[in-house]
């Protein structure tokens, strides 16, 4: 029951965000040249899309067209949360510390979180996986990756 009301709340939050985005697109488009009937300018398309997006967001918020019972939404799990943080951290670190170090830490943390086993196994997986990924992508496939960073 609690998961169903969480589902409806999440649905409403997304609908509100879409409504807000629609209003923002309309507001931004109104500052662009509208052109004429024969030569529509860059404002016309985003303006129309913004209006429709706001209407669609509003309709979802009002519960229109949402047939049937709500689905169930499990709360954000620990594993998914860790994966999001690791990916964001990898984006920050990738060019600063280099690909090899980023790969090693990323694999280590994710493996440790998901396996819930001894840390040395995760460390081994991190190091071996990073080396293998570096060899495959940088050496075999010739992908330009930021320096080793060690």
């Amino acid at each position: 029951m609690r998961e169903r009301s969480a589902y409806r709340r999440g649905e409403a939050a997304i609908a509100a965000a879409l409504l807000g985005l629609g209003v923002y697109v309309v507001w931004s488009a109104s500052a662009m040249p509208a052109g004429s009937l024969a030569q529509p300018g860059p404002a016309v398309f985003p303006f129309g899309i913004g209006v429709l997006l706001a209407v669609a967001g509003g309709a979802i918020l009002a519960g229109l067209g949402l047939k049937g019972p709500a689905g169930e939404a499990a709360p954000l799990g620990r594993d998914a949360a860790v994966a999001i943080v690791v990916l964001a951290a990898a984006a920050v670190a990738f060019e600063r510390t280099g690909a090899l170090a980023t790969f090693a830490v990323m694999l280590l943390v994710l493996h440790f979180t998901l396996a819930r086993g001894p840390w040395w196994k995760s460390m081994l997986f991190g190091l071996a996986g990073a080396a293998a990924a570096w060899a495959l992508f940088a050496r075999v496939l010739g992908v330009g990756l930021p320096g080793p960073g060690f």
Partner: protein
Amino acid sequence: MESFGQLLHGFAVALTWKNLLYCLMGCVWGTAVGMLPGLGPLAGMALLLPLTFGLDPATAVIMLAGIFYGAMYGGSTTSILARIPGEAASVVTCIDGHEMAKKGRAGPALVVAAVGSFVGGTLSVVGLTLFAPMLADAMLRVGPAAEFILMVLALLVVAFVSSGPMVKTLAMLLLGLAIATIGLDPLTAWPRFTYGAITLSDGIAFVPLSIGLFGVSEILLDLDRRGAMRPIKPRLRDLMPNARDLRQSAPAIGRGSVIGFLFGVIPGISHVISTFVSYAVEKRLSKTPQEFGQGAIAGVAGPEAANNATTGSSMIPLLVLGIPAIPVTAILLSAMLIHGVRPGPQLISDHPNVFWGLIASMYVGNLLLLLLNLPLVGVFVSLLRIPRAYLTPSILLICLVGVYSVNANVVDIWIMVGSGIVGYLFRKFGFDVAPLLLALVLGDRIEISFRRALSISGGDYAVFYQGAAAKVFLSALSVLLFVQCASWAIGYRKRSGNRDTSIG
């Protein structure tokens, strides 16, 4: 006859050792991602898209198409052995396929699924070979006004046939169109929503967005799910179906192929719908409908043939009209554009190697899959036993490298992470992200054709209902809207009737 000659030329392209190798790689990778729950053809193609940049266009498209129909094959294996559909179109196969596996008949179920997939896939490529050139010829005479109506029609069909609430699908389509407006205006180069950032001048990059929306979000959702898989392991010597199996499955495969081919050209989730329709038809026509749900082989053969028959026909709107009917073909479209190939009526004359090479490779790929999948079923099943602690970090690492390798730009990684989180939230709360991708791909062309049509007509909106093609598409649009409004009215009357009865 001319098409036959060009098809032979296509075989000359597809049968070079390089294209054969990439076709095989695509098929094997496709089978693997189709089997692994959470990774469907979309994520599988999005992940390997960056690796195709160094290839010539025909090879790249051949490999990506191989992933597409390989995933359709692979999805059935997990459905039969583990009752977990590897991808959405294999849901129906779970019903009778897994029941057969539980009764020790996994082998015949797998063989019939593979043969059904092969026949369905091959027949639909024959249809593609016959109809695509004719349709392309007709489409050369379509102007921007008719093109605009056709694309709007395609998006509305997606919204109307979606499995979830239509208003949510419409919102996703509109969000995709809104994202498509980011960057320089295609006709006047006026910067829209770029905030002075040069990176945004070309718009939001398709590759990181699609990997985020489909690959990363799917992995995050999978991390929220729990439960181990216990696939049934089939024995090779038990693979062959008996005479009764063959008698029951042959007509089902034929009917499934026709249903799949017809549904494949409809934009949206046609490959999923076609399997349900095929299952319903088989159950209706069966002399023993009570066996359905208990392990009826026709319940595996028909839907599997239908599922794979959509792969060929869903290529028709992409190759001939330049309109991706389903998200998978949107990724193919994106790959073609990256390689400087614009799908549409002129594709056959401008890039015969790509067009006929792709079609010929689909014949070859279907045969490769049939030959590979049965002897290697044990190897593929062992993929399901790789612990998540090893698989998930490895896939996320491939996503990261794949996205970065396109432009060597860390902003793309941010886009991937951001769209992954957004896609995760959308999907968690019942918003399908596939329509967003379709609208994003078509957004530019919809706007350009709309503005060009008005420009040519001097601002006269009558241009949208003049000309034979515009009239045909507009009539189809009107019929679609009428049918939808009628179904709303009927549903409303039924609900009011029920309410009155319960009050009374």
